[in-house]
């Protein structure tokens, strides 16, 4: 008997499975990601975004400007291997010597702690764990203060390889005057794999800090740099500079910043997928993403970046080449992109052809049509379903473009929530409106965009001389 097409498809489908190795590896990475604060490789997409959040985001971005942060960094920071940038002044607290605690044959050693006005960074290691400790993921990390309160982590990460846990966790800064606390680390009690973890489930290690630096502490100097990108001035110009560098044993860390000429552009970011580096002899030099200093309030600071040059054996100068930059733009007043006549009572399924090309900040966007849609019905909401406009963008000139569009017309309707992300023919941009769908003469405007800004930025950087 000949198989039906459906059966053939189903058989083909059933034969495709992700490998168990991939399945386990990815889940492990995801769990680990809860404790990492590495800047995302791309600026965040806004998804299911209440309208008010756009405004809140704008406020946050304005509060934490790179100029303010770098200004506060000038000349004040050193680099401590294993910790990162450390504010080198009389208020910074250090763990003078490692502190250890033994439990069931395993030993947790706090190797380093540095606490300045920006953050507290704790580096610890657990050794001597039994063989069945591979599934022990010490995901819960806290700093317990003498007053009973706890400081939460703001980032960092940990690994568990060969029964040795190595962790570097960043916490909020210690309150002023606090010099004693306890590191609390534990396997999450709700972790379904906790029963297979044969190691101690929790640790609490007391420590004291002082302004005295450990005798063997090697603080590496952060050297000023003046390397700048050569880009033409214009409305959408971005100037990139390398402001500081640190020489490591195995490479350099470069700290830089963006200066944006477009007042709507709130944040720029390195596209780590396209940045390259070459030395004077044409040799490709590997680059890695590196931590930047977080804002004391826990926000990720925009418009500064850090790159590790993962090689020291090269012929200077080093030329960094960037083809794209991530741009996060907020248009507070909105930029009108198209209008249409929705009539007095737009109905679900009603569609208007737009067929218009609009240029926003140098990026061409093609709007195809707009359609009235209704919220999904499956979740059984009690109140009436909201209607929204689905805007179809067929293409844009940027390699990636994600916009947030709000429409205004007659009526009391205001933007409520919706989707964002790169829209396409299949996946239009949809935003639902509370208080009724705007009707009559409707104008849709762009209020937020996240896109890859194309360009050609070269930055020639000269490593500092050894005695600098």
């Amino acid at each position, binding site marked *: 008997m000949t*198989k*039906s*097409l*459906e059966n*053939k*498809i*189903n*058989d*083909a*489908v059933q*034969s*495709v*499975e*992700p*490998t168990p190795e*991939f*399945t386990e590896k*990815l*889940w492990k*990475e*995801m*769990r680990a*990601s*809860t404790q990492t604060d590495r800047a995302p490789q791309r600026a965040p*997409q806004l*998804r*299911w*975004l209440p309208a008010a959040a756009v405004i809140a985001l704008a406020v946050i971005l304005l509060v934490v400007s790179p100029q303010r942060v770098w200004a506060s960094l000038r000349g004040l920071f050193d680099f401590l291997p294993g910790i990162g940038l450390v504010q080198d002044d009389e208020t910074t607290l250090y763990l003078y010597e490692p502190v250890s605690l033994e439990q069931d044959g395993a030993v947790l050693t706090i190797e380093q702690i540095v606490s300045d006005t920006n953050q507290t960074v704790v580096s610890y290691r657990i050794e001597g764990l039994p063989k069945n400790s591979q599934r022990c993921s010490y*995901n819960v990390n806290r700093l317990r203060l003498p007053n009973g309160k706890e400081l939460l982590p703001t980032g960092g990460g940990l690994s568990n390889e060969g029964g040795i846990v190595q962790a570097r966790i960043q916490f909020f800064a210690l309150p002023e005057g606090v010099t004693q606390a306890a590191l609390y680390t534990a396997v*999450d009690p*709700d*972790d*379904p794999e906790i029963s297979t973890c044969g190691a101690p489930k929790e640790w609490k290690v007391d420590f004291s800090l002082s302004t005295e630096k450990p005798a063997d502490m090697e603080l590496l100097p952060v050297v000023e740099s003046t390397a700048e990108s050569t880009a033409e001035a214009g409305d959408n110009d971005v100037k990139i500079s390398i402001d500081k560098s640190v020489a490591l044993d195995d490479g350099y860390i470069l700290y830089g910043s963006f200066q944006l000429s477009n007042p709507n552009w709130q944040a720029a970011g390195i596209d780590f*997928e396209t940045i390259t580096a070459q030395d004077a002899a044409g040799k490709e030099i590997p680059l890695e993403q590196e931590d930047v200093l977080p804002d004391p309030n826990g926000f990720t600071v925009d418009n500064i970046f850090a790159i590790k040059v993962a090689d020291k054996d090269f012929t200077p100068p080093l030329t960094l080449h960037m083809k794209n930059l991530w741009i996060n733009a907020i248009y507070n007043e909105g930029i009108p992109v198209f209008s249409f006549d929705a009539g007095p009572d737009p109905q679900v*399924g009603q569609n208007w052809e737009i067929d218009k090309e609009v240029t926003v900040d140098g990026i061409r966007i093609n709007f195809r049509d707009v*359609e009235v*849609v209704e*919220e*999904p019905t*499956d*979740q059984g*909401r009690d109140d009436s379903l909201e209607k929204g406009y*689905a805007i179809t963008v067929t293409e844009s000139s940027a*390699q*990636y473009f994600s916009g947030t569009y709000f429409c205004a017309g007659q009526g009391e309707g205001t933007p409520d*929530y919706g*989707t964002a*992300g*790169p829209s*396409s*023919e*299949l*996946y*239009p941009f*949809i935003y639902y409106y509370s208080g009724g769908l705007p009707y009559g003469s409707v104008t849709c405007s762009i209020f937020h965009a996240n896109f890859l800004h194309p360009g050609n930025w070269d930055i020639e950087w000269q490593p500092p001389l050894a005695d600098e």
Partner: protein
Amino acid sequence: MDLTIKGERNQHERMAEDVELVGAAQRNPLEFEALYRKWLTPVYRYFYFRLGNVKDAEDLSAQVFLKAYQDLPCYRSRGAFSAWLFTIAHARLVDYYRKNSRKAALEVSIEELEIPVSAMDLPERAAQKGEFEQVFSLLMGLTEKEQTLIRLRFMAELSYREIGQVLHCKEDTARKSVARLLERMKKQMENDHD
């Protein structure tokens, strides 16, 4: 015509289960594991049957789940979780298209197709391989939008209602579109056979 697939029969139970799982994961991120294990295979298949190779299917699946894991606290369960997840998946695919625009519009040749080992291990593996290639070839003959419909239906095992949510069309439109596509693919299959 029997268009029933595994996911259709229990769609209401499955969606209700997702609502519970999402709630648990929003309270405790580690609970996301249940959603991950439930949806990884459909997401992986959704990519695999477009890209034809394991590496890219794994890369994009990883991106989808890392993104979903990160964004879950903001997820508002007004639609099916599956629709949300596959909206992310599609966004990743669009991103992939843009970055790989030189790859001849992402055409996958049968010669380059990485046929799963499990299919090759079956007793009638030669026939299985042939069928696998035939299915892939029929898919590649469809437009991007048509392929998406088929992948959402058969590879992701979404119900027509869920497909409607992902593609922002009515449930019935999704049902009729898939039925029409299958008819066309069958005719194509018969022509190829002749």
